[in-house]
């Protein structure tokens, strides 16, 4: 199930809300746990058991760590490492088996079995990271082990963030899990946030995706420079609206059930450097890597050389986390190099430049990054890259590419302005803070329009759940 499907909006969600709000407090986690399992089983019935196995292992290991950490820190450490290794091994096997097997088979004499039945379990990249954060947080004494299996299960499977984040660290929701208060204010904030996300995904994200697919297809027959630019720009905007829309929906849903999830996006496309971009894009992922990889490796406290090495590790892993394919690895290396260059001197230099230089520099590099990200086929990716600069294509544009460009221009402009804080500021100034009723009406219209687009498209899956 994805949030932007009619069955989620008008069957699953009302049923879950109803059950959640009629049962007594003590049962609320159980309701969420059960419905989250149902949510997962809907799309991935077989791998439900894999997820439950992961949860159960982590739960038991958590209790063990808790028991040992007061008496024998070393032993607790070993248990922690065992738990993390086990959880990670599920992820590595299910996500990277095909990649490793396919590439090893290129070497003579090495052949791993094909395992055609093996598909990537939805959300495994996200819930694995959540489980690891729990295990490590317990070991580091940042929180106590969760003794209640249902509460722990709820944390891992909580359906708003289960399949595409935000990646919630255990210590962030520890208190909410067992003692939270649902209020009308929180619910209405959640409803507004959810509606915003829905509209971002359905009204903009999907439309941008259609434009992107169009130009990507066209470039196979009649590549142009304009077409190549439109391909990468539309993809970049699409990914932002798709993914941040999903995060908005997740955060909104969380609020409806009394949870406060961390923010995942903060207008990434207004950044003035790549360093800043990664503080604004997929924040919970960057935070996770910082807390559980970069800092444990020593971060920046052991000299420049070690810091660059640590950055390299983090970014290779970040690249691979996004998918088992060479282009994602390359994408990770790309950002690793950029960030090291910024750390070395460029960041300070950019700060002294006029703002527009930083904006231009960042957007250009981010868009090129998403070009690497979007083409799993290297030849096509290189063709697109060359076409950006007019190499190997039919000139700057042709009639059809121009026609489509003019047609999509209003959408791209709306999307570009929408990716800045401007609309929110304007709305706040227009209504001078007294915006309750107007906001509600906007939300109602947004829901109806989203439904119209959903009914028309029948069904549109999320782009980010494959990772």
């Amino acid at each position, binding site marked *: *199930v994805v949030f932007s*499907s*009619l*069955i989620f*909006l*008008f*069957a699953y*969600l*009302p049923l879950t*809300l109803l059950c959640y709000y009629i049962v007594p407090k003590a049962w609320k986690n159980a309701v969420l746990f059960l419905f989250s399992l149902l949510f997962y089983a*809907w*799309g*991935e*019935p*077989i791998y439900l058991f894999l997820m439950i196995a992961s949860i159960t292992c982590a739960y038991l290991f958590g209790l063990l760590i808790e028991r040992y950490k007061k008496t024998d820190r070393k032993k607790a450490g070993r248990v922690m490492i065992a738990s993390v290794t086990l959880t990670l091994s599920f992820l590595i096997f299910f996500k990277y088996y095909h990649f490793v097997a396919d590439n090893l088979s290129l070497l003579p004499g090495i052949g791993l079995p094909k395992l055609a039945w093996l598909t990537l379990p939805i959300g495994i990249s996200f819930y694995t990271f959540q489980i690891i954060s729990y295990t490590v947080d317990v070991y580091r004494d940042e929180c106590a082990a969760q003794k209640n299996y249902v509460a722990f299960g709820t944390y891992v499977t909580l359906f708003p963030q289960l399949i595409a984040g935000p990646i919630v660290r255990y210590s962030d929701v520890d208190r909410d899990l067992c003692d939270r208060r649902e209020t*009308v*204010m929180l*619910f*209405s*904030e959640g*409803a*507004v946030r*959810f*509606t915003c996300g829905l509209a971002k995904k359905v009204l903009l994200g999907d439309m941008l995706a*259609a434009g992107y*697919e*169009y130009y990507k*297809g*066209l470039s*196979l*027959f*009649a590549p142009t420079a304009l077409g190549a630019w439109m391909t990468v720009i539309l993809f970049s905007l699409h990914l932002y609206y798709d993914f941040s829309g999903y995060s908005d929906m997740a955060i909104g849903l969380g609020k409806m059930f009394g949870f406060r999830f961390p923010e995942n996006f903060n207008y990434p496309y207004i950044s003035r450097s790549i360093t800043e971009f990664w503080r604004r894009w997929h924040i919970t992922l960057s935070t996770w890597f910082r807390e559980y990889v970069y800092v444990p490796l020593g971060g920046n406290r052991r000299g420049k050389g070690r810091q660059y090495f640590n950055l390299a590790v983090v970014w290779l892993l970040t690249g691979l986390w996004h998918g088992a394919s060479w282009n994602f690895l390359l994408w990770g290396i790309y950002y690793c190099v950029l960030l090291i260059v910024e750390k070395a001197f460029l960041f300070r230099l950019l700060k002294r430049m006029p703002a527009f230089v930083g904006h231009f520099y960042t957007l250009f590099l981010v868009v090129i990054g998403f070009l690497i990200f979007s083409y799993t086929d290297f030849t096509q990716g290189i063709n697109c890259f060359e076409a950006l600069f007019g190499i190997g294509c039919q000139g700057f544009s*042709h*009639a*059809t590419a*121009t*026609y489509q460009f003019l*047609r*999509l221009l*209003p*959408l791209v402009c709306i999307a570009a302005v929408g990716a800045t804080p401007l609309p929110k500021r304007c709305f706040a100034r227009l209504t001078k803070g*007294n*915006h*309750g*009723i107007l*906001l*509600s009406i906007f*939300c*109602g219209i947004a*829901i*109806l*329009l989203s*439904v*119209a*687009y*959903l*009914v*028309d498209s*029948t*069904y549109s899956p999320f782009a980010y759940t494959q990772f």
Partner: protein
Amino acid sequence: MKQNANRFTASLFVTLIFGFSFLFFALPDHSFSEQENRSLRTLPRFGMEKLISGEYSEQINDYFADQFPARDWFVGIKGTMEILLGKGENNGILLGKNGQLAQRLFDVRRSDGGVITDTDGFDREAVKIAVEGINRANKALDVPFSVLLTGRTIDVTASSFAYPAAFGEELRAIVKDALNPDVSYIDTIPLLAKKHSAGESVYYQTDHHWTTRGAYYAYCEVMRSFGMGDAILPEDAFDRKTVSQAFYGTAWSAGGMKFVSPDTIEFWLKGNEDSFLVTADGKAIDGFYSYGYLDQKDQYSAFLDGTHDVVTVTKADGMPRPKLLMLKDSFANSLAPFLAQHFDLVLLNLSSVRTDYTNVSEYAASIQADRVLLVYTLENVIGATKLQKLR
């Protein structure tokens, strides 16, 4: 004040979510959508295997979208929104002057076997391979072979749109170039495009087919290329009868632009329609026109009873005439009644999914055809896989 606003927001959200949910379950299901001309998904049967394979959840998703309350209204809202956004089209259907609709995005086959969906480009190599099939059939046949590649609406009605015609022109040039010079190629597109610009209705505004008038002009071109120009029946030999004023075609369904008005359908009656015997897949049918379809959404099917694998036309009194084998798609259905005035016809549905008719030379020999005519849409030249197999 703030608290009241929150209450209002929360209750509006809950009302919408629960309201539609209630309506969905309370309203009865429909099994067919007139507007979209297709069966709607009804409640799928539950099965453990289907659940595990994920098929069940997919079917439930479709069921929800298909049976959603006020589905047609929502589809119309989306279509209108897209036009208001200045896109000039919806779901790949362009909106042109005077409510002319035309599909512009097609599924295109690539020479490496892949398919690109929703594109207005085409693969030059794949087109050449398809045309090579026509050349092959031409060589294999020992009777005259003529080829009529019908234009897509966008090719013929290009003057009604701001949409650039460059790709369509390039496609037609490549086809012409790749055809062997000894293939008799009947190009109706320039003539029909001229008639369209002059205000004549030669293609439907809401459907992808040509009108009866368009088919008549094509008939004249075909006769001329057969060297039978003298035998062409003039327009006024027919009683041009309007049989429907409410034809909403395929482009209308896909485009979701509810404000576009419907087409009319004409039958051109010579008066001798009763003297023909028409069979479809071995059974006699009502003649050239099946009036029953005119009460339904899919009214173009009134011509030769819609889609069949094999249709034959002979004189009812058994008097034999020259035999014309037509290898065709649905455009031929409204053309055939004109040609039936001169020939006994055998129409084979080249796009059939049940039977493969690509071995045209063998088939022509077995029925002792005197001529063979291919009537196939450019859309099928770039998308379908049949032409390349002709022999």
